[in-house]
């Protein structure tokens, strides 16, 4: 599979997609949405959608989809080949959400949750399918968080679609299984072939599945930390696994949006409006200097 759009800069997100089969433009379609790699502390999260005409549901079932989690990697790869081969009636799209994107988005000043990231990716892919001309009528989504809220949100955005948000959708609906396989295969592929642009020698490659509970992943995280930078962008810094490790083992880093409670408690300086009464007025500098954070040097 051609992942070059992602691998040339894996710090950013990328979308891979098939052509939209003509029949998907002509006939009403169902579309399934699922994700892979939500839990891992390493690598991207991948969102997949697949769609086919409602009339092709039987054909789809014949491809033999099942819950991707019950399949072996080989079986998934095989099914993904079948999906690509079924390009006369089956279309798909995959969005790779880079670990760097996940980190910096979740750690932003304005909070942005993984649920929000997930939904936005799903919505974006659905929108893209529609923009590409697919005549989507029914949408099946594996749940993210509260199914009814998610359903409500999607329904609000796409009032003319028949939307079903449900847990285990990939086991219930073959079109979601297909989406799940696309996402999972791409996630595995990206994980295996990850290019560390920080340098090949920067870390070892025995990082396992990327799940925080995987002993290989645990060892890798413990052995590959840089005390200044933490980890390469391959690691999701927004995971508590990561922040706990950094807190304990790396040099501490302070940002201006943390410790707000602490500063409210009185780390304010004499410049503060609530300056101590005994402050020497002669020490006060003109606002020109204060605004530029320029202070007299008293010693080296």
């Amino acid at each position: 599979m051609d992942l070059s759009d992602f691998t040339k800069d894996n710090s950013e997100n990328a979308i891979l997609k098939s052509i939209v089969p003509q029949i998907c433009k002509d006939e009403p379609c169902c579309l399934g949405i699922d994700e892979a790699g939500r839990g891992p502390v390493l690598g991207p999260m991948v969102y997949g959608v697949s769609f086919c005409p409602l009339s092709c549901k039987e054909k789809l079932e014949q491809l033999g989809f099942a819950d991707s989690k019950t399949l072996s990697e080989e079986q998934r790869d095989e099914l993904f080949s079948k999906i690509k081969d079924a390009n006369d009636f089956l279309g798909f799209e995959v969005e790779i959400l880079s670990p760097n994107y996940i980190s910096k988005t979740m750690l932003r000043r304005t909070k942005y949750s993984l649920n929000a990231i997930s939904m936005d990716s799903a919505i974006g892919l659905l929108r893209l399918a529609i923009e590409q001309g697919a005549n989507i009528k029914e949408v099946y989504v594996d749940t993210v968080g509260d199914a009814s809220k998610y359903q409500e949100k999607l329904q609000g955005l796409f009032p003319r679609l028949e939307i079903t948000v449900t847990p285990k959708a990939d086991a219930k609906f073959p079109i979601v299984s297909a989406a799940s396989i696309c996402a999972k295969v791409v996630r595995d592929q990206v994980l295996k072939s990850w290019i560390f642009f920080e340098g090949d020698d920067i870390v070892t490659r025995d990082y396992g599945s990327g799940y925080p509970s995987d002993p290989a992943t645990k060892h890798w995280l413990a052995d590959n930390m840089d005390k200044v930078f933490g980890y390469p962008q391959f690691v999701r810094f927004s995971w508590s696994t990561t922040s706990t490790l950094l807190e304990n083992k790396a040099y501490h880093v302070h940002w201006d949006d943390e410790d707000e409670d602490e500063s409210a408690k009185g780390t304010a300086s004499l410049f503060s409006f609530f300056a101590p009464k005994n402050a020497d007025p002669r020490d006060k500098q003109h606002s020109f200097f204060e605004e530029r954070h320029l202070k007299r040097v008293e010693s080296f």
Partner: protein
Amino acid sequence: MSLFLNKKSVADSSPADVHLLGCNVEHTGDAKVSEFFKTAIRKKKNENDLSATFRGRTLCGQVLNVPTGYTGLVLKENQRPFMEEEDRTLQATHQFDKFTYWNLEMTPSVNDAVVKAMMWPEIAEAIHAAGDTNDSQESVKSQR
């Protein structure tokens, strides 16, 4: 005791790539800046705007020139003398004429304190140039 800057060391100092980070790192020492940081720097659409990530957070950066007529130096004191009375000497290890400054998630702007601070030498000159006051008084009077 006195404190000196060894002038000869300035000539011997090497040009350095210098970044003013938008966070405080509790460490002074070696860091794999080329591997971890420089590889993360991207140019934004506006050529002057840069982005990077550090510890999973977004930094927005811009290159700032050292004020005209000025030079940037990194000064190092190799060994602080044991006795308070002894003279101390600082060595220039690096020099630079520009540096990149980084803000947490905020695109650099002319209102950033560091940009305004770089204007100080020019403003300072207006205060401290020992110009002939009679001349300047004349010019001021003629304006009134």
